[in-house]
């Protein structure tokens, strides 16, 4: 438990929600999405509302704040803010409460902010809206103070920026500043860190904690991420199909979940850390060899014509049956790398060899032939499937493209559906009629259609709920075992990579900074960036809080159009010294399992470095 929790006797409930019940009118009749939910949160405390998507988390909070959409109907219940039932207030009274006594921070700060007003002015407006006595200048000064409070560097200068000039993490800080502008009694954060990288998530959670310490506000954290709950919450409500299936202090719920549902949620949560046994060595040589791959873009941002160094010299080997994880923050070039490997993008230089053949310059029939066995699975299963074609048709499409959809084509589609665990009779459905997990299975079936050797997976489970993630990962493991596939597995989620990958490559601003055997890298990260990344992974149980192992990186990923001199990580590295600014370290073998590029990590004797410098 955190020490800030107030003793029971002095707890003063800020928000008390009781018997909240909400229904939606649908064509199929009334749908009860929130069913008799009770919870309360006290001053200075943090309540975690957790559950899978569709569990009713957001609707519960929207209902409690009187923000329900018009298709929803409040059946009964009360939401008392310091004794005043918000649900009985008239719209005008409610507007005075929102933004003043209650601050809200939403998931996507870009859509929550007005694109054409300056950030500082938007915060100042939030202040003046609820206190007309504040002068324009006074509100502006207060806005700058607030931005400083939430850790925006150079706030006195940067308040003039427009939202698009700020990074995701910075925008989320601005949203927090806006939410706390009027000293609210309650701060509601709805999936506020979900869209952020782990490193930035750690920063934002730190800001929320600091704000709570400074102002004593109560916080309601809505999230599907149990790591965030373990990190932040004092009490927890677990929602499942609109009901509060479990509630209590965070230590209690994590240590002894009462219901099987919660136990399942916890067991499949971030603590899944089963390490894979090393893949059997196959001596047929690598199936995929990437050497010095460079992909630059010309960015067309207004006057400047900058060269974006998205991928800037990446080399690796991939052996049959092996999985290589590629991890890094968003914007580090992971997606560009995989799209270049499957030749959706043209490399600026470097070579890609697939099954011993140089495919870098292939085109037409030759390229199509390679594409049958080098396949990609995309992140967003919704966007990756044509909404106007049935899923059976989608899976059959690569067969048709390659002229293998003859008389037996329907049978092959059926076989593929069974292979990925889908009922074959779903094949007449359209993508929007399937769940996220089912859609991702369709995406995998499409990739498997032409009997590939290598599957490139671009964040294949990031948009899925944790239990569904586990199912898809199990499927991928089974397919790898049965079909001898090799995976390049891109993810920002380090726990997922740990589970599925034999080796892991850590990418930073277009380059690999550490590549090695997963077990070794996770147990003993060598590069400072790897260490920071691993330490930013949310903890798995509240008991680990404050164990002091966390390294919170300052700032954001550098602009890949202007990568820093020397070591690219030196701008955020807490260990950087003079040499790092001028001299770029190269990847060097540091032990039997690993290569790493850092001046602080000494390579093993030159004599023992393999010729290529790459791992077997």
């Amino acid at each position, binding site marked *: 438990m955190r020490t800030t929790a107030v003793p029971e006797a002095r707890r003063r409930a800020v928000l008390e929600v009781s018997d909240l019940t909400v229904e939606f009118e*649908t*064509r*199929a009749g009334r*749908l009860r999405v929130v069913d008799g939910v009770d919870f309360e949160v006290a001053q200075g405390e943090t309540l975690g509302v957790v559950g*899978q998507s*569709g569990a009713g988390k957001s609707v519960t909070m929207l209902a409690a704040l009187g923000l329900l959409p018009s298709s929803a109907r409040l059946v009964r219940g009360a939401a008392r803010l310091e004794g005043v039932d918000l649900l009985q207030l008239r719209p005008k009274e409610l507007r005075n409460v929102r933004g003043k006594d209650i601050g809200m921070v939403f998931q996507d700060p870009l859509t929550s902010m007005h694109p054409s007003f300056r950030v500082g002015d938007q915060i100042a407006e939030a202040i003046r809206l609820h206190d007309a006595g504040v002068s324009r200048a006074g509100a502006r000064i207060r806005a700058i103070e607030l931005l400083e409070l939430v850790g925006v560097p150079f706030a006195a200068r940067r308040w003039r920026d427009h939202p698009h000039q700020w990074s995701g993490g910075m925008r989320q800080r601005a949203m927090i500043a806006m939410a706390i502008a009027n000293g609210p009694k309650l701060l509601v954060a709805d999936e506020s860190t979900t869209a952020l990288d782990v490193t930035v998530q750690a920063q934002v959670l730190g800001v929320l904690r600091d704000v709570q310490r400074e102002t004593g506000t109560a916080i309601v954290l809505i999230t599907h991420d149990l790591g965030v709950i373990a990190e932040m919450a004092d009490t927890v409500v677990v929602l499942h199909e609109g009901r509060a299936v479990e509630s209590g202090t965070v230590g209690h719920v994590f240590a002894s979940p009462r219901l099987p549902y919660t136990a399942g949620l916890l067991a499949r949560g971030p603590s899944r850390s089963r390490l894979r046994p090393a893949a059997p060595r196959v001596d047929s040589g690598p199936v995929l060899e990437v050497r010095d791959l460079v992909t630059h873009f010309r960015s067309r941002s207004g006057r400047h014509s900058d060269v974006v160094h998205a991928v800037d010299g990446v080399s690796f080997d991939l052996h049959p049956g092996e999985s290589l994880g590629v991890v890094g923050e968003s914007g580090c070039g992971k997606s560009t790398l995989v*799209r270049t490997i*499957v030749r*959706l993008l043209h490399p600026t230089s470097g070579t890609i060899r697939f099954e011993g053949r140089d495919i870098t310059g292939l085109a037409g029939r030759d*390229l*199509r*032939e390679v*594409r*049958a066995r080098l*396949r*990609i699975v*995309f*992140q*967003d299963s919704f*966007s*990756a*499937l*044509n*909404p*106007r*074609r*049935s899923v059976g048709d989608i899976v059959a*499409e*690569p067969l048709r*493209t*390659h002229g293998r959809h003859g008389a037996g084509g329907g049978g092959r589609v059926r076989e593929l559906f069974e292979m990925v*665990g*889908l009922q074959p009779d779903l094949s*007449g*459905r*359209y993508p*929007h*009629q*399937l*769940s*996220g*997990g*089912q859609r991702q*299975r369709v*995406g995998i079936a*499409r990739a498997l259609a032409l009997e590939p050797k290598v599957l490139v997976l671009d964040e294949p489970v990031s948009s899925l*709920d944790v239990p*569904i993630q586990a*199912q898809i990962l199990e499927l991928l493991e089974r397919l790898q075992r049965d079909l001898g596939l090799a995976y390049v597995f891109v993810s920002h989620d380090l726990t997922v990579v740990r589970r599925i990958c034999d080796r892991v490559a850590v990418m930073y601003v277009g380059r690999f900074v550490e590549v090695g055997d997963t077990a070794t890298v996770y147990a003993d990260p060598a590069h400072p960036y790897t260490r920071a990344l691993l330490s930013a992974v949310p903890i798995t149980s509240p008991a680990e809080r404050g164990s002091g192992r966390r390294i919170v990186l300052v700032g954001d990923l550098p602009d890949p159009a202007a990568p820093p001199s020397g070591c690219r990580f030196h701008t955020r590295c807490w260990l950087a010294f003079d040499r790092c600014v001028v001299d770029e370290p190269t990847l060097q073998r540091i032990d039997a399992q690993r290569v790493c590029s850092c001046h602080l990590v000494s390579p093993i004797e030159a004599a023992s470095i393999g010729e290529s410098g790459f791992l077997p």
Partner: protein
Amino acid sequence: MADVPVPELTGRPAHHQSWTAVLARPAGAIGAFLVLVVVVGGIIGPWVAPNDPFSVDGPSLAKPSLSFPMGTDALGRDAFSGVLHGLRTTLFVAGGVAAIVVVVGMSVGLAAGYRAGWLDQVLMRSTEFVQVLPRFFLAIVVIAMFGPGLRQLVLVLGLSSWPLLARVVRAETLSLREREFIEAARADGSSPLRIILRELLPNVVPSAVVVVGLLVAQVMLIEASLGFLGLGDPNVVSLGSLASEGQDFIRVAWWLAFFPGLAIVVAVLGLNLLADAVTGSLGGGR
């Protein structure tokens, strides 16, 4: 599998659902009905029409009655038969123009949107060139030079009406080509033509239907206006020329101008309502 169950699985193809959604709207139902009346009237009209629209069948300027449901004109010709034949003319012009617009507009829009780059520049500049031509006056000029005739009317209206469709299709395509299913098709090894026809086209059709509907409504009005001004083919009955002739007798025989005018209103209003309903049902469904 133990996936999260999806509620309301009907298993019906999506496009069926979207058509029911269109018809479920009052505007959609009324619009569809009016369009149906016009189309059916135009197709079977000449066969069910009791008389030849150019033959003298009854007394001059007879009021609407059982034998002449829309009355007769100054020469004693049956106005009902005239309107039915006029609808067919309208339909012929509208259908012909729609066919040209769809072929040219879709091809230009899809090619420009998918290929981008110089091809996009060339096609869009040409589109703008055609777009600034005043359609109505162009039609008048062509008729003045080549004489009245439905064929040249269809050609000139068709070849000057496609830019709007091309621009809408291009815009749709530009946003669709960033979607991952297009990348997935490229990763399959699909050819650009295959991607355009099988991946892009089905997604562009709904908005194209709306634009074509509105364009056709405009074309019907232009055809009627030309007829009204006496620029139509004198050997073909047009709703516009009927209305124009009836105008001279508006004080003594209101029905002569009223019924052709009503037919024009029904056709144009029906198409507009239907297009509106399609737009509305697309808004929520995607």
